[in-house]
């Protein structure tokens, strides 16, 4: 194969597979992309870094023919091309794996993969093809399995197989790890590395996670406000510099941690990736030159740093006898569709502490969030708030008992996107803004304006539908509403998911504030860094039960790893 000659030689071939010159796209007065130049070569993973709204998605939509550019040229192997539709993009060998899965749940894997084909469907050929691709790239998946029963990581694999089946020479991945576990992410980058090296494909990796950009890419381009503000070979830059370019200012430690600025996280991915990668990891400034193919040493260093932080920060609290818990979960057991998702979960959260519930995605934390949102009643077990058991079958009982929740799926269960900001802010406390029958518009808007100001919600007016707000502001609406009811305990699920650095930082600051005012906070997160920076105790969830609770001083990588793996410490 022609590609084989290039496989050993990481230096890019002179003609870029894809070259963008001065590509611009405006929506009214807003320039989503402003004269963007980008070169993507065969055999490289090109990182595209930027906050939400930086123009990454628009740029990719232009490449996929979903959006027409206003100006600029796109060259494919030095040939100017016009991409008018996704079909044309596919014909030009540009394929994309979207951030949100576009799979159809009730269909099987192979059916999803061939979806969109025309002509006769050859079932066994399609299955063989899926198996062949899955073997070639190391993407184990059963072609006969129904997508509905697959984990996030497996779905990602299906998406990838679907895309690779079209044999694209330029492969675009939009935030591919947002729902993946650490191990799954590492595996994904391994696959990409193989596709790039041995088959001379080009990969564009869109992300706002600094650690995965530094660990997995060869070159990186940073977009801010629609413009390219920085480009470099990944080896010659580091997460701190990239963060600066991405945000345009220094970020606080908490936010850094949440976007994965702490080093070593993807050390294992780098180790697997091949000879070129190890060298790169060593040049990362934060790795302290100690990173080798093994992730172990780097992880240990990282944990020491954190342990110190937590030790100094939370020592005072740890010394006193813990006050009685505000939130007491006892023996929560829940089965959904015949699958046990929670099995005898016990957890306490005391006033003034942030308890981090950490675990790999899919171990029951989502269901716990739904349960605490009042969407499910458990098969058995109790939820006690301030010493009183709550009847979970009664709608609104949790809220009445003093539990506030910022759910994981904010558009789904936390907000009514088509209703106004004001309506969303008061929807759980109608008593405060209405008589027995009629709503009081004046009081509604007065309350809404007060909360908008207090929580720094950026919105044109309190009448604006929530769907027009950015992700960070939507989350602030939920948080403002929940905190305005003065709950005794606040549950926050995956607070940094889908948000940019600024919004994450703001959220973290507010969580620390409410905890220091004496509220009990339960933080459900799959981001280890987030849990480590915020929580005073870490409860690890595995297979629907708590495998162990560690307070500041006890946290080590080994212990966490054991607990996450399901063994009780």
């Amino acid at each position: 194969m022609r590609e084989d000659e290039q496989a050993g030689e990481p230096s890019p071939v002179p003609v870029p597979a894809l070259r963008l010159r001065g590509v611009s796209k405006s929506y009214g007065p807003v320039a989503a992309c402003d004269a963007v130049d980008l070169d993507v070569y065969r055999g490289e993973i090109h990182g595209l870094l930027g906050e939400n709204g930086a123009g990454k998605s628009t740029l990719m939509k232009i490449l996929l023919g979903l959006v027409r550019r206003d100006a600029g040229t796109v060259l494919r192997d030095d040939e100017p091309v016009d991409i008018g539709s996704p079909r044309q993009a596919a014909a030009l060998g540009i394929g994309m794996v979207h951030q949100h899965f576009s799979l159809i749940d009730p269909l099987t894997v192979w059916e999803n993969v061939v979806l969109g084909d025309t002509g006769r469907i050859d079932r066994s050929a399609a299955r063989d093809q899926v198996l062949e691709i899955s073997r070639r790239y190391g993407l184990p998946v059963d072609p006969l399995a129904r997508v509905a029963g697959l984990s996030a990581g497996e779905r990602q694999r299906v998406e990838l197989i679907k895309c690779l089946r079209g044999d694209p020479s330029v492969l675009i991945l939009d935030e591919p790890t947002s729902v993946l576990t650490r191990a799954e992410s590492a595996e994904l980058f391994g696959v990409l590395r193989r596709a790039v090296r041995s088959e001379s494909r080009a990969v564009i990796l869109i992300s706002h996670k600094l650690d995965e950009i530094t660990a997995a890419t060869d070159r990186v381009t940073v977009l801010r406000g629609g413009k390219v503000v920085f480009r470099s070979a990944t080896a010659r830059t580091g997460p701190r510099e990239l963060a600066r370019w991405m945000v345009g200012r220094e970020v606080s430690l908490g936010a850094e941690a949440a976007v994965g600025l702490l080093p070593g996280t993807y050390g294992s991915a780098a180790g697997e990736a091949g000879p070129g990668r190890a060298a790169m990891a060593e040049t990362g400034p934060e790795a302290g030159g100690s990173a080798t193919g093994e992730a172990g040493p780097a992880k240990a260093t990282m944990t020491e740093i954190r342990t110190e932080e937590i030790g100094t920060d939370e020592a005072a609290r740890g010394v006193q006898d813990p006050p009685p818990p505000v939130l007491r979960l006892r023996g929560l057991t829940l089965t959904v569709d015949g699958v046990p998702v929670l099995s005898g979960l016990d957890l306490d959260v005391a006033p003034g502490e942030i308890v981090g519930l950490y675990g790999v995605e899919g171990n029951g934390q989502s269901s716990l969030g739904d349960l605490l949102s009042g969407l499910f009643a458990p098969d058995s077990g109790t939820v006690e708030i301030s010493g009183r058991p709550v009847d979970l079958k009664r709608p609104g009982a949790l809220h009445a008992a003093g539990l506030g929740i910022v759910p994981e799926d904010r558009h789904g269960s936390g907000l009514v996107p088509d209703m106004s900001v004001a309506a969303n802010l008061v929807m759980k406390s109608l008593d405060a803004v209405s008589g027995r029958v009629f709503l009081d518009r004046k009081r509604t808007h007065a309350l809404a304006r007060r909360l908008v100001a207090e929580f720094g919600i950026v919105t044109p007016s309190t009448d604006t539908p929530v769907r027009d707000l950015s992700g960070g502001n939507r989350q602030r609406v939920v948080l403002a509403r929940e905190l305005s009811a003065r709950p005794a305990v606040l549950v926050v699920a995956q607070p940094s998911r889908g948000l940019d650095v600024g919004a994450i930082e703001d959220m973290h600051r507010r969580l620390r504030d409410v905890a220091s005012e004496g509220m009990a906070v339960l933080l459900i997160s799959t981001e280890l860094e987030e849990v480590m920076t915020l929580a005073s105790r870490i409860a690890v969830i595995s297979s629907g039960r708590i495998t162990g609770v560690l307070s500041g001083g006890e946290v080590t990588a080994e212990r966490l790893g054991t607990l996450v793996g399901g063994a009780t410490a």
Partner: protein
Amino acid sequence: MREIPSGSGQGPSGRLLALLTAGPGASGWKTGLVTVAGVAVALALSSLLIAVTGGSPLDSVRALFQGSVADSTAWTSTLLYAAPLLLVAVGACVSARSGVFNIGQEGQVLVGALFAAWVGLRLAVTGPALLVVVLTVAALAGGAWAGLSSLMYRLRGVNIVVSTLLMTFVAQQLVAFAVNTPWLLQETRIGDAVVAPQSNPLPPGALLGSIGEYPDLQVNGGLLIAVTGAAIIATAITRTRWGFRLTMLGLNPVAARHAGVRADALGGAALAVSGAFAGLAGAVLLTSPVGVHRLQPGMAMNIGWDGLLVALVARNRPGPAVAVALLFGALRSGGGFLAATGVPSVVVDVVKALLVLAFVAPPAVIAVLRRRGSGVRTARDGHGAVPVAERTAL
């Protein structure tokens, strides 16, 4: 894997209706423009059709106009049709807003009329009190009939769109049975006269009179009831806690449940309310001079279906539904006049349907246009949350 508890029985059909009934768009003038164009196209097609079938398009338009709004007689007829249409539409607004799609109004109208006739003919109450009883019983009967669908959903998970639709056919059979059964409601046999499948005429005390005295023009009490109903529901939806919860349930059942709304109870109540309005419309059909004051199998005259269309065109807002109901009333009475001029009634139906399409289609057309031009917010938002049709809040 995650099961999202749905508050109300709806499927793809419900979603389709939701798309069609999506709230008012940001650009009212655009909708107006497309509507005008649509009406022009409908008129052109109608003219063509009438010309092809041997009529005179110009005369037909004149007839349509004369029969609906040209003089006070025409207005009388228009208003008589508008009242039951509006009642059905207001009810449809309530259920659709809660996300429960009731499309069985035609049957609920019949059941309302059936019980109204029974009470009006059998109850020994005299004077205006009888009218009050008749109207109340009709509303209760319509509500209970719709409530059966809600019950089926809660007990066995029967889709509400399907069950309300099918219950219409049951209602039709019930009425046919009642007016063909001597011991039920069939008219009294006088001598050897042939008895028709219909009830006796209602006593004068059970009839809706006109309000005020105008030369030629009659404004029936039914219209007053309908407009009052529209005003009450409009206020209830926008200004009360009940309406707030209803809107929340319709727009996002999961969030509503999370916020403490009893989805089943509220959705069931909304369905019953919409059935009650349809039942009331049945009583108005029976007791106002639009018919012959007798229960007849064909007396619903598709008012249930058309009322649903009124709500569709008004996009589930009771206020605009008043105007739309007038328009549909005018189309009905003008259409009747047109048929009287010799244009085949089939063609009249097609003309009416084309005009209805002209008024229903614009929001959908705009939505399609907007979707094609979208990407603005999607691109900047980065999450791929696609705003398709906007809806109003509060």
